């Protein structure tokens, strides 16, 4: 046994060296048309060898290490001995905490810098997106890798409507969302019959098709140059710019007799995003408790059983897909308005992958978890700028590790249930 372990460990260490050394230790550099090969600095090489040694040691003593892990108290069975809080009490506490956070979020932007409010708006856009994707992936179990396409539909709807027809933000918001939902419906209708992994690929292909079309339909979308000059939202006809752009509107600062400040617009956008995020969360929460929400989960858990109970597979899946797309359209409209400029660059596959990573890390199906993950995933790279280029590397690794060790996510979903008291 020991000899076999040793051979296996040696093999693993050699593989580690083979996959790490050529890529990390030998760097290709292009100088004009010549390519030269330079060895990496000593630190990298040493790290590669240390990694190999660590792998060797781990594989050699694998069984022992695994035993220690299992016997560590509180790691695996964390909190299992604790009496779970009563369901209604927990729900009450939760709702108080959430109300508190929302109220705090309402007043918070008036006391901080413009940059952080802008970032917070972006966070909220991701919250909306993640909540929407959570319906599709987390609840209905449909892996949608082209979610960003619906986001693009929302954003481009607003941009095009405002450019060609002069439509305002408030009118474009429902139109963008509905159009995105329509796209979801039209795409979903044929593809939802497919099995899980095929569905993933088809949605991925669809997302790419949308992006390529946006990129090449230059006469309509401006191609890679994108569309600029997207108007800001107005508050009952009041504009937030220094000067009024449109006939019949008044400016916000003149109406209230206060000095003009660029922050007003940013804060207003933030508040819109906040309201929409809360709206999204509440609507989806309702859906989760409705029969259709139960049906999503039933279909995710066991399709055959659900169908044999008389559920229409297409209708249930389609509703999840459409609702997810609807909220992506919302987020897209807000995004277009926030940036004032959009181009196909903002809607690449990576964006879909980030949203998926948020849902997976937060815990598929769990709303609180997804919201927290959206906040963390968007803010952390801003806080640690020097690590920002490692962001996607860490996301990728986190997705794998999460699936291996904790597929239910950091804050797993809790099923809403009723407990009967005093009965055996």
């Amino acid at each position: 046994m020991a000899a076999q372990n040793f051979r296996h460990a040696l093999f693993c260490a050699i593989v580690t060296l083979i996959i790490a050394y050529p890529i990390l230790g030998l760097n290709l550099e292009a100088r004009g048309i010549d390519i030269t090969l330079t060895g990496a600095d000593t630190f990298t090489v040493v790290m590669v060898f240390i990694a190999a040694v660590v792998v060797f040691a781990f594989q050699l003593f694998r069984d022992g290490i695994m035993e220690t892990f299992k016997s560590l108290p509180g790691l695996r069975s964390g909190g299992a001995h604790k009496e779970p809080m009563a369901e209604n009490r927990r729900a009450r506490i939760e709702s108080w905490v959430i109300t508190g956070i929302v109220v705090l979020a309402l007043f918070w932007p008036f006391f901080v810098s413009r940059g952080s409010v802008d970032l917070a708006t972006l966070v909220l856009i991701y919250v909306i997106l993640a909540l929407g994707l959570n319906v599709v992936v987390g609840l209905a179990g449909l892996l949608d890798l082209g979610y960003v396409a619906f986001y693009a539909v929302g954003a481009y709807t607003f941009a095009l409507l405002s450019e060609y027809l002069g439509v305002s933000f408030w009118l474009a918001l429902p139109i963008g969302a509905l159009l995105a939902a329509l796209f979801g419906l039209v795409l979903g209708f044929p593809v939802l019959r497919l099995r899980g992994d095929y569905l993933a690929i088809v949605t991925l292909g669809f997302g790419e098709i949308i992006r390529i079309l946006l990129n090449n339909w230059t006469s309509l979308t401006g191609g890679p140059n994108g569309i600029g000059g997207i108007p800001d939202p107005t508050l009952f006809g009041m504009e937030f710019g220094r000067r009024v752009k449109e006939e019949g509107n008044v400016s916000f600062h003149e109406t209230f007799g206060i000095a003009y400040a660029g922050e007003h617009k940013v804060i207003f956008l933030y508040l819109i995003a906040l309201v929409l995020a809360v709206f999204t969360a509440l609507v989806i929460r309702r859906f989760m408790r409705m029969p259709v929400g139960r049906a999503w989960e039933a279909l995710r858990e066991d399709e055959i059983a659900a169908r044999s109970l008389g559920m229409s597979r297409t209708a249930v899946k389609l509703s999840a897909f459409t609702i997810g797309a609807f909220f992506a359209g919302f987020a897209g409209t807000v995004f277009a308005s926030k940036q004032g400029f959009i181009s196909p660059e903002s809607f690449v596959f990576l964006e879909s992958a980030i949203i998926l990573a948020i849902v997976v890390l937060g815990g598929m199906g769990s709303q609180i978890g997804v919201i927290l993950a959206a906040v963390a995933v968007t803010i952390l790279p801003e806080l640690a700028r020097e690590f920002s280029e490692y962001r996607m590397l860490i996301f990728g690794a986190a997705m794998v590790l999460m699936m291996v060790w904790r597929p239910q996510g950091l804050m797993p979903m809790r099923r809403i249930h009723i407990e009967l008291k005093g009965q055996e």
Partner: protein
Amino acid sequence: MSEALLYFIQQLINGLTIGSAYALIAIGYTMVYGIIGMINFAHGEIYMIGAYTALIAITGLATLGVTWLPLVLLVALVCAMIVSSSMGWAVERVAYRPVRGRHRLIPLISAIGMSIFLQNYVHLAQGSRNIGFPSLIEGSFRFGSPENFQVSLSFIQITIFITTLICMTALSVFISRSRTGRACRAVSQDLGMASLLGIDTNRIISATFVIGAALAAVAGLLLGMYYGSIDPLFGFIAGLKAFTAAVLGGIGSIPGAMLGGLILGVAESMTSGYLSGEYKDVISFSLLILILLFKPTGLLGKPEVEKI
């Protein structure tokens, strides 16, 4: 011959070249799917790593002053195959084996994570800019009169055909004759039963990943030379195309992957030849969607019966 016909023949040659390379990558998807029923999303990245390793080996040999072409190609090929296979083995071990047999979504998400990880691994180590790949094999046969359109069949295209042919033949012989190949077929028919009969299924699954990765590395070297440049993202689209090829031919079927690759390559080069180069990706994705909708088993695939 008329000019239109010559133009058509040129597109056909280009399409078959790309298509046979797609077929090499598609083998990895189709074998893995045939055995454990999952899409190995990171396969495109393995192919990309193969191309990078080959380029590193070629550049290294040039620095050492080795210029004898067959030797350079052989060393690059062997290095790429070794690194890619190790990568394929490690990926299966780290990201797929622990989640095998769980809910369908879980291995898939794990695979997407792995794909993102590998992309950024190469991106961070080798930079994100695309880097020139020496074509090594220069020259071409030309047909047709010099003043009109000339069909060119470059030596690199011939190399791609021949290499693909050799790899496919070797693979077919391996699968149908060798002991491991027979075990592979048994495992893909019924994993549980094969393991009851004393086949080390874990080893066979690892072997599948290794074989697929090695073939992807061959494609990496060939397509790197053909396109003339590589970057860390170029595995993603190629992987998607190869997956399309695998589905088109019937996923799980090795001749199907070959057929699907060729059809896809020709469809693509016809689109860029007669419509516009920008839309060739749209065509292949649309083809994928249509195939999945109307004939999910592909051209040569066997229908899958869902058991309760």
